[in-house]
């Protein structure tokens, strides 16, 4: 069997072939066209030119699960393919079919569980089962491990290997090079819509792939200067809730001139921590900034005035006014202090320091790439002299160059004496930047490591330990 993917819409003619039984990694930066390619192969997006040939059904597991949260597992798995009895659904048969499927692939699920009550890892199993029920000859996995704990990642790839062993061709779209090296047989690297390299995985390494993705050397991070840490932020018995995110009775400190990395899997209380510091939700317990007690019900404005700057996780919704231009977005939060005549200069300063492209204060932010949008956000929040910077997933979904720039500016802020709380789901990012690592799981800190004593394996285990 041979499956051939023809030319692609997200620019130039891409040829890609998948062999039955192989795990093929497709890597590239955000915007390189990998997801578009996967969507074309699946048939969700039409190619302007070129053809897709597949012997058998193509299945796709999305990065963001496409499950109906209010429905049960079996309803999601068999959606649109429900076994019928006359005009009604044959529920016992449906349940049996899901159990059989789960047993066959070693993906244990409760067919009657309501999806919204399930943890992320199980949801992904449901998503996978849904595709497997169609017995795909080709399975496309788009960033499948983004929401999984390290231990879950390992078991996930065990399942994938099992599928491949049955003759399924698997394409894993990812930006996590460690997984590429560990689990794939072949790797295709894309940049700007074109294939720039193809390798047998055994014949290459992560650094080489990274260079190919970026199209040059991976930019180096700013060097960390020696600082004299003095306690800046002290939290005692801090608890807060923001939506479904909860933080329970945590005690920690951040010193001026240090970056504290909060390592954890999404959904373990990080949002509650960020929002409590930002003044979006109230907290209980005690919080001091430079010795001054913070009121639990401060408004965001009060926190800003104290020098706390929070880089939100969802820049498009929580940090930017997408219909506005760069200039007005740079001003946001400083509109009362900055004279109107100073808007343009403030914008140009951020554009220059953060290399925003296009370098036009009048450019509409919604039209910028994710990386440039994030530069505007971080540029705005780091201007002035912030005392405490809370960076929540500051490089999520942006290209490596922009990510390196953002991380470097955070390190520079640290060098200049700011305390930085770096909340990230990417361990690599934390290891690259943090002076200290706190591991968060189940809304509590379950481990603390100094930079010199970082132990990837132990941190991964602690992260997973907090999961239900």
């Amino acid at each position, binding site marked *: 069997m041979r499956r051939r993917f023809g030319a692609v819409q997200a620019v130039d003619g891409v040829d890609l072939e998948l062999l039955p039984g192989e795990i093929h990694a497709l890597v590239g930066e955000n915007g390189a066209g990998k997801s578009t390619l996967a969507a074309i192969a699946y048939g969700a997006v039409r190619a302007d030119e070129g053809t897709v040939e597949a012997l058998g059904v193509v299945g796709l597991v999305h990065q963001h699960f496409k499950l109906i949260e209010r429905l049960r597992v079996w309803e999601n798995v068999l959606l649109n393919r429900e076994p019928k009895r006359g005009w009604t659904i044959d529920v016992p048969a449906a349940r049996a079919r899901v159990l059989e499927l789960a047993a066959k692939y070693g993906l244990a699920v409760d067919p009657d569980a309501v999806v919204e009550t399930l943890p992320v890892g199980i949801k992904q199993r449901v998503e996978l089962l849904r595709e497997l029920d169609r017995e795909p000859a080709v399975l496309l996995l788009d960033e499948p491990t983004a929401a999984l704990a390290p231990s879950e990642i390992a078991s996930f790839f065990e399942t994938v290997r099992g599928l491949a062993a049955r003759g399924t061709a698997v394409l894993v779209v990812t930006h996590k090079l460690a997984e590429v090296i560990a689990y794939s047989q072949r790797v295709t690297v894309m940049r700007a819509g074109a294939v720039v390299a193809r390798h047998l995985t055994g014949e290459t390494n992560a650094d080489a792939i990274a260079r190919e993705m970026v199209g040059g050397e991976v930019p180096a991070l700013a060097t960390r200067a020696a600082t004299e840490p003095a306690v800046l932020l002290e939290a005692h018995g801090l608890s807060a809730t923001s939506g479904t995110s909860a933080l329970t009775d945590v005690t920690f400190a951040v010193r001026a001139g240090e970056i504290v990395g909060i390592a954890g899997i999404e959904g373990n209380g990080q949002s509650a921590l960020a929002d409590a510091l930002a003044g979006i939700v109230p907290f209980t317990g005690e919080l001091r900034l430079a010795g001054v007690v913070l009121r639990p019900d401060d408004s*965001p404005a009060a*926190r800003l005035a104290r020098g706390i700057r929070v880089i939100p996780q969802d820049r498009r*919704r929580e940090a930017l*006014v997408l219909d506005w231009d760069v200039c007005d977005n740079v*001003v946001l939060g400083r*509109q009362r202090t900055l004279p109107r005549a100073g808007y343009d200069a403030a914008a140009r300063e951020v554009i220059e320091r953060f290399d925003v492209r296009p370098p036009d204060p009048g450019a509409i932010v919604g039209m910028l790439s994710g990386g440039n949008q994030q530069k505007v956000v971080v540029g705005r929040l780091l201007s002035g002299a912030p005392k405490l910077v809370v960076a929540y997933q500051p490089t999520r979904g942006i290209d490596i160059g922009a990510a390196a720039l953002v991380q470097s500016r955070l390190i520079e802020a640290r060098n200049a004496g700011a305390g930085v709380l770096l909340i990230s789901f990417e361990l690599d990012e934390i290891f690259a930047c943090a002076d200290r690592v706190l591991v968060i799981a189940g809304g509590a800190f379950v481990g603390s490591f100094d930079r010199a004593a970082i132990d990837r394996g132990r941190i991964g285990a602690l992260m997973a330990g907090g999961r239900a």
Partner: protein
Amino acid sequence: MPYAFVRGRAFRDIVIVLVLVFGVGSIAMLLAHVSPLVAFGALFDGAFGTREEVAETLVQATNLLFPALGIAVAFRAGLFNIGAEGQLILGGFAAGWLGAQLPLPWYLAIPMVLVAGALAGGVWGAIPGFLRARFGANEVIATLMLNVVAVLLATYLVNGPLALPGSGASETPSLPHAAQLPDLVADSRLTWAFPIALGLAFVLRWMLQRTVFGYELRAAGDAPEAAKRAGIDLRRTAFVAMALSGAIAGLGGATIVAGELHRFNTGLSPGYGFIAIAVALVGNLDPLWIIVASLAFGVLQSGGIAMQAEAGVPRDVVALVTGLVIIALAGRRVVAARRST
């Protein structure tokens, strides 16, 4: 590129409106057994035929411009104020009630009458603003309900405690001459309300684009979550925007009373506050474009009656078209807003 984006949207809106007005309008006219050519001929003739008719078109445009500007202020803050009708009516009531008993020279009486209208409308707008800020109450429902309350309240006041002995109409006494807005064009009902409305549009445009308050108001409307995290007090913004929105609509009611009717009557508005929603949306919530939109709808309003008189087409056609414009444009905005939150 960004401007092409914005302009493209505005352009599409204009196409929608033209299709609705001429397409749906023509179908309705054919159903009334009248040639659309004749009917639209009568409509435009009624709106532009003579100097006086142009003046009446401007009168209608003015009556729509005030509430449309008020609506735009609220909509720009992300608040769907559909209570302009009630705010306008109470503004008119305050103007009529106060104006009728002010033995003052014109330079005091006219400003006081207008301010009274703005204050009353402002209070009426501030109520849903407060409910929203304090309790998170949905302003759409609150403003819609308050329309009804406004009419009933005004009707009760003019028929009950403030009833005129010997009059069967639900209205206040006539305003003394000094409290009436002077005419702008002889032999017409066009008064100084028109230039006041135009000036207000420019002031609002300046306020929205150039002042800190306008900046915060737009931020709250365009990206509430980002605005909140940037330290903007969404509750305060909502309250002030609603009060201002109501005040502008109330000012409109005051100008109708002081300029056209010279008294308050509970039926002073044939639905200006609702038609103005379409005006504000067609004007893309930009005060200067709203001037243009109000002129277009003024043509429909004044020409619509002439069309009924001269071509026999019921002017419900105009109401039909206006309603469709609201559904088409507001529906899209509501969907967009829901999606972004």
